[in-house]
């Protein structure tokens, strides 16, 4: 038992003699990181995170690929000759004159009744 205790004391003495010194460079680095984070902050800070940046790049590449495929595979529309309102009106079938002959009574119609 005494031997066991001695062994334990030696073990603890050796273990306790080992330690790490605080490294001032580590704090300087951490502080710079924190200050940079505070300056950037918000959405820009989120955007700068590597994972977010990678997913943004992937989304961009995907949308470019999709739009290119759509543009290349879509048939061009048949172009019409009417380019403005007057062309469109001229192109309309004309209305027979008889149909446009409306008497004044008809024009007033039943609205006055």
């Amino acid at each position, binding site marked *: 038992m005494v031997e066991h205790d001695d062994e334990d004391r030696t073990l603890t*003495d*050796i*273990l*306790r003699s*080992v330690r790490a010194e605080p490294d001032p460079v*580590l704090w300087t680095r*951490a502080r710079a990181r924190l200050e940079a984070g505070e300056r950037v902050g918000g959405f820009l800070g989120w955007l700068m995170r590597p994972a977010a940046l990678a997913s943004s790049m992937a989304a961009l590449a995907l949308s470019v690929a999709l739009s290119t495929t759509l543009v290349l595979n879509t048939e061009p529309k048949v172009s019409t000759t009417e380019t403005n309102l007057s062309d469109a009106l001229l192109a309309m079938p004309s209305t027979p004159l008889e149909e446009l002959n409306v008497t004044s009574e008809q024009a007033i119609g039943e609205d006055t009744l």
Partner: protein
Amino acid sequence: MLPEPREAEIIARLRAKDLDALGELYRDLGGAMLTLARSILKSRDEADDVVEDALMRIHRAAPGFRGERGLRTWTLRIVANLCRDRLRRGKFSAGPPEELDPLAHAGLVVDPVAGWDRNLDLERKLAALERALGELPADQREAVILCDRMDLSYEEAAATLGISVGALKSRLFRARDTLRAKLGGKE
């Protein structure tokens, strides 16, 4: 450990996101944070990364810290959790190759101990103990480092690891047994 009024003042300033308070915390507890991380991870670079991340986390989480467990326990708990994450992810192998000095590789220094028998091959014994420590299961290693290396009380070490005092003592018992056997066998 920090004196109570000073600890309360640092906690209040940390809650207000005062970076100078974080610097003071590092000045007071940085040695303990690094000793824990370097002893667990056995790699100076990995351990320093963990302590840097721990400082970021402390800065972020400080507004929600109520101070029930004490600043040192809270800080060391964050470091221990980050070390566990690193070990779990297995990004590196804990421990240097056999031919390297494990203490130098981990960035640990040795203080002279009064009354040590100079006839003992201390360097060899230190290196053997450090290697044996690195071969322990992570939960036992944490217990030995907190109680035997860093001299934390059972209660504080248990709170740091988030386990009961009984579980801590059981881990310590098994770890010391293994270390004794390994050191005895190597001599």
